[in-house]
């Protein structure tokens, strides 16, 4: 190297050092516990974060604070009892958790539920989806410091839960499905009431769209934050609105229709940005699509029995089956192994949140504390769904 070059590179290095004045001081890394008791982790989720100032250099999610051994418990419960257990996986949309399990049992037994049951199941699944997303739209605002939307979305969620309650008797944990059918028919006046609530939910979506998603601070805080590129998302098995926001139009309801999703018309909402804003906005749009589905189902609701012909004692013939469904948080699947008899031999649950959370160590590297919170909120996981 000539002297001129070395001089140039030296001055360049000096310039670089000059430009990064604040990086000169070396301090040991600080290890920060975020969770299990933290306002923004929605339960007992824990992140061990190495932080440098407020920049997160490394993050390690610690799961298992809420492990309840449900898969094992399923092995000593009859099929009817298992629905009560799986209700408690993703506790915000308990009803949706029942669907794939019941469908897998029905598939092994070779039973198909009557059409009216299929429609009612679809309606209730979508109601649960709306309730879940309304919680999200509110709580995501809270994480970013906007307190008010929460109370408004919760008010309308209450109406949706009232509907669920009027049909199933339960608000969070309906435990309403039986193999081959459902417990009870719709109460009188449900169709009209439901249609009115759908209007309210749509109105709420419009308000949230204008007030939260239209807010400049909200956009600044979420646009371009926590981008999951499509290939990374697929690599980590991210599903639901999280992957649709990255540009993958994967929706089990359309790709592998169950219930009556092939008979209703709805759009699979996608986005290409893959950031926190896109994830939240996809959920907002999906709430609108969901009310559309419910309206179509209400219109097409057939009459008929609410129970297929099933034996008194449910005995599932030996076999293995995997059934998946599009839950509010993403794809949920049950791998059911039966060796005959009244109880499942093995139930393996694929919950959406567990896979969604697995992307965190990669996603949170190098972000700032406030962004970390925004990203955690936008991924939208439920601890019961992560830990099982």
């Amino acid at each position, binding site marked *: 190297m000539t002297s001129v070059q070395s001089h140039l590179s030296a001055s360049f290095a000096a310039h670089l050092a000059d430009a990064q004045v604040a*990086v000169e001081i070396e*301090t040991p890394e*600080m*290890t920060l*516990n975020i969770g*299990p008791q933290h306002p923004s982790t929605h339960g007992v989720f824990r992140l061990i974060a190495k932080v440098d100032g407020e920049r997160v250099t490394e993050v390690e999610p610690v799961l298992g604070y809420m492990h309840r051994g449900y898969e094992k418990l399923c092995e000593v419960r009859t099929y009817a009892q298992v629905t009560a257990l799986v209700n408690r996986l993703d506790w915000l949309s308990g009803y949706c958790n029942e669907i794939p399990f019941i469908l897998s049992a029905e598939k092994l037994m070779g039973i198909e539920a009557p059409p009216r049951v299929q429609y009612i199941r679809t309606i209730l699944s979508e109601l649960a989806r709306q309730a879940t997303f309304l919680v999200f739209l509110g709580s995501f605002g809270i994480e970013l410091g906007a307190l008010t939307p929460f109370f408004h979305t919760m008010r309308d969620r209450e109406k949706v839960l009232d509907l669920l309650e009027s049909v199933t008797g339960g608000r969070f944990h309906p435990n309403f499905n039986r193999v081959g059918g459902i417990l009870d028919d719709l109460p009188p006046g449900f169709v009209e009431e439901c249609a009115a609530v759908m209007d309210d939910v749509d109105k709420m979506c419009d308000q949230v769209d204008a007030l939260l998603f239209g807010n400049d601070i909200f956009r600044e805080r979420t646009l371009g934050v926590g981008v999951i590129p499509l290939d990374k998302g697929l690599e980590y098995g991210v599903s639901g609105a999280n992957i649709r926001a990255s540009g993958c139009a994967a929706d089990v309801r359309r790709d592998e229709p169950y219930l009556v999703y092939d008979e209703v018309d709805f759009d699979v909402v996608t986005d290409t940005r893959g950031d926190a804003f896109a994830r939240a906005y996809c959920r907002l749009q999906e709430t609108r699509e969901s009310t559309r589905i419910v309206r179509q189902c209400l219109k097409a609701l057939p009459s008929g029995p609410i129970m297929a012909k099933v034996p008194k004692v449910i005995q599932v013939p030996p076999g293995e089956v995997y059934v998946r469904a599009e839950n509010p948080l993403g794809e949920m699947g049950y791998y059911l192994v039966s060796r005959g008899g009244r109880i499942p031999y093995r139930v393996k649950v694929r919950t959406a949140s567990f896979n969604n959370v697995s992307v965190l160590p990669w996603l949170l590297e190098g972000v700032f504390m406030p962004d970390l919170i925004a990203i955690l909120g936008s991924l939208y996981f439920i601890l019961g769904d992560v830990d099982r």
Partner: protein
Amino acid sequence: MPIDAYYRSYLQVAAVGLLGLGLFGAMIGLAKVLQPRRLSDLKSSIYECGVEPLGDEWSQSQVRYYVFALLFVVFDVEAIFVFPWAVIMGTLSWAALVEMVIFILILAVALLYAVRKGVLRWI
């Protein structure tokens, strides 16, 4: 304002200060009387989201914003110069105004320089 009136107004400020101190003392004293005393090791450990604190409690953290502090000192001193000037500005000549404009502009250029240099980033 005569000189003793000048000091008297601070006497009133001091009275409020004493009232504030009295409130502080009263609150602490009242709490001392009313509070239960059941100390335990667990209670007097620090908050770290419900688990045992990781690492050293007095962990060092890098103050990333010290450039802001430097700039603040510069501009705060500027403000100290500007305030007396502002009070009598109307009675001064044009020269005083021009001088002050030059003074402020120099600092504004310094701020621009800092912005261009990128030290106002949050790192």
